[in-house]
C-alpha cells in the first residue's frame, strides 16, 4: 500500500504545541480523566433519537454521496468550472472574466450574477469553488468537495463525494458589520438573499448531488 505521508516521518518532538502541552489545556475529554462507564454515559447523553434542523444544518451543510465511476473521472469533471452548468440546479452562462475568475448567472434569484473560481488540487482530489452572488471582490460562499476512492473506503469500486459548506456570517441578515457590497445586495427587495435559503441548503445540495451522480454514472456506463 502506498503511504502518502509526504511530510513525515514525524517525530513526537516536532508536534505543534506552541508552548503548551495538551495535558495543561482545560476542558479536554480524554481517557486520562474519564473511565469507560463515564464515557459511555456521556455518549448516551449526547446521542438522541431526533435532532432539530438547526442542530444538524445550523452551521455546516455536510453531504456524502457514493458515485459509481472512477474517482479520477469524478475529480476531473468537478475540477472543470463549466461542469457547474450541468449539475447545479441554476448556475448557468458561465464565462471567464480573466485570471481564473468566472462569472455566471444564478437563476435561483432574480437578476443575480454569480462569480466563481474552481480551485482544484489533484494530489488530494479536492475541488473548492469559492463564489459569491453579485460581486467578485470577496468570494465568501465557499463550496468544498473532496473525492475519495471508494475501494479502500467502502470496499467497492467508485467514488465517495464529500461536500461541505460552512455558514459564513454574510449569510445571516442579523450580522450588520458587513461591507457595502454585502449590505447593498442584502437589502434588495426584488429577490431573496442567499442567506434566506440557508435552511434549504441541504435539500438543494442533495438534489444537485443526485444530478452530479446521475451525470457521472450515466457517462461512465455509456462512455
Amino acid at each position, binding site marked *: 500500500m502506498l503511504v502518502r505521508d509526504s511530510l513525515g516521518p514525524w517525530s513526537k518532538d516536532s508536534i505543534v504545541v506552541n508552548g503548551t502541552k495538551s495535558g495543561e489545556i482545560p476542558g479536554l475529554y480524554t481517557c486520562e480523566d474519564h473511565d469507560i462507564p463515564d464515557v459511555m454515559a456521556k455518549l448516551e447523553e449526547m446521542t438522541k433519537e431526533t435532532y432539530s434542523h438547526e442542530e444538524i444544518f445550523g452551521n455546516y451543510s455536510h453531504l456524502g454521496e457514493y458515485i459509481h465511476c472512477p474517482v479520477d473521472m469524478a475529480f476531473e469533471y468537478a475540477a472543470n468550472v463549466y461542469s457547474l452548468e450541468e449539475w447545479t440546479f441554476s448556475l448557468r452562462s458561465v464565462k471567464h472574466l*480573466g485570471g481564473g475568475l468566472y462569472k455566471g448567472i444564478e437563476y435561483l434569484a432574480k437578476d443575480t450574477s454569480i462569480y466563481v473560481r474552481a480551485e482544484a488540487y489533484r494530489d488530494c482530489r479536492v475541488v473548492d469553488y469559492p463564489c459569491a452572488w453579485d460581486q467578485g471582490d470577496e*468570494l465568501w460562499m465557499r463550496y468544498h468537495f473532496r473525492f475519495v476512492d471508494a475501494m479502500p473506503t467502502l470496499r467497492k469500486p467508485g467514488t465517495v463525494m464529500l461536500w461541505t459548506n460552512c455558514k459564513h456570517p454574510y449569510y445571516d441578515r442579523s450580522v450588520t458589520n458587513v461591507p457595502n457590497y454585502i449590505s447593498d445586495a442584502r437589502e434588495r427587495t426584488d429577490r431573496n438573499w442567499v442567506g434566506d435559503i440557508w435552511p434549504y441548503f441541504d435539500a438543494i445540495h442533495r438534489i444537485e448531488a443526485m444530478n452530479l451522480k446521475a451525470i457521472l454514472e450515466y457517462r461512465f456506463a455509456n462512455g
Partner: protein
Amino acid sequence: MPGAQIVDVVSFMPERVVDNTKLALDGEDENELDKNAFFKGVKERRFASPEYQSSDLGSKALKLLLERTGTKPEVLDLILCSCMFSDYFWPGIGPAIQYRVGASKATILNLDTGCSSYLSMLNTARAFIESGIYKTIAIVTVTNFISRLPEFQKSKKSWVLGDGASATLLVEGKSSFVASYERSHGEHYGLFVFQPDIVDGQGLNYWERGCGPITVNFSPDMVTAIRSNALELVPDAVSKCLFKAGLSTDDVSLLITHQPNAFFIKEWRSRIGIGEPRVHDTLECYGNLFQGSIPVTLADAIEKNKVQAGDLLTLGTFSNGGDFVSSMVLRWA
C-alpha cells in the same frame, strides 16, 4: 552566516505636482468604468518627464541615500535596479546609475517582478549578503511612466498613477529579515498588460511599425478579475508570511501595502486585520508608483518617525493583476 541589515530607505520625488482636483476631462466622457473604486483615492501625484530621465531619477535617489548614510559610492558591491519604463527599450538603466553615482566597484542587476520588484530585490540582496558574495548593496526603484504617456494621461483610469524613485541600503550586519513569502501565479499572466493602443481599429504589437502609444486597455471584466485576485492574494500572502515568521497580526508594528487605490488598501487592512494607527500610506499624495509604492511609503514613514528600532514591519503587494504575490516581515534595526 552573515546577516543582511537594511540601513535606510530614501525617496526622491520629482518636483512637478499634478493636482488631480484641478484636472478636467479632455475630450473623453466619464464612463461607468472610470467611476470604479479601482481608479480612486489620489489627490495629487508627481510627474518626472520630461524634466527627468529614468536614469536621472534613479541616480538622484541613490546619491541622496549615500549622502544620508555617509556611504562612499566605491563601497557598493551591487546595485539592484527596477525601473518602470527604462530610458531605452533596451538596455536597462542599472549601468547608468552605477556610473553616475561613482560606484566604481559595483556590479548591477536589473530585476522585474512588476509591483513586487522591490520585495524581490530585498530577497535577492539578502541572499547575496547571507551567502557572503557581497557585503554592501543598494536597491533602486524608478517609476517614470505616466508622465511619458500624454494620451493615457487623458483617461481617468490613469489618474491614480504617479512617478518617483527610491533607494535602499543593505549591509552585512544584524539581519533585518524575519520571513518572506513570494509566489508566481502564472495562471494570471496576461490579465494586466501595458500594450500599444489600438490605431484605426488595429491592435499592433509593440515592435511593429505604426503601433499606438502605450496604454492599458481596461475592460470591466478585467477590472473585476484583478480586484478579485488582488483582494484574495495579498491578505493570503501576508498571513502565510506571518505564519512563517511565527507571528500574529498583533505583533506587527506597521503594515505597508502596495498603494494601487484606496479601495484595495482599505480592504487589505480589513482582511489582514491590521488598521490605524499601525499602517502608513502615500497614495493620496503620490499615487500608485508600481514597484516604488512600498519603498517610497516606507521612506515616508521613516521620515515621519513612524518606524523605530526593533519595530516589526510587514509588507504586502501583488503584480500585474495577480501573476505574482509577495509579502515580507522585517525587524527594523
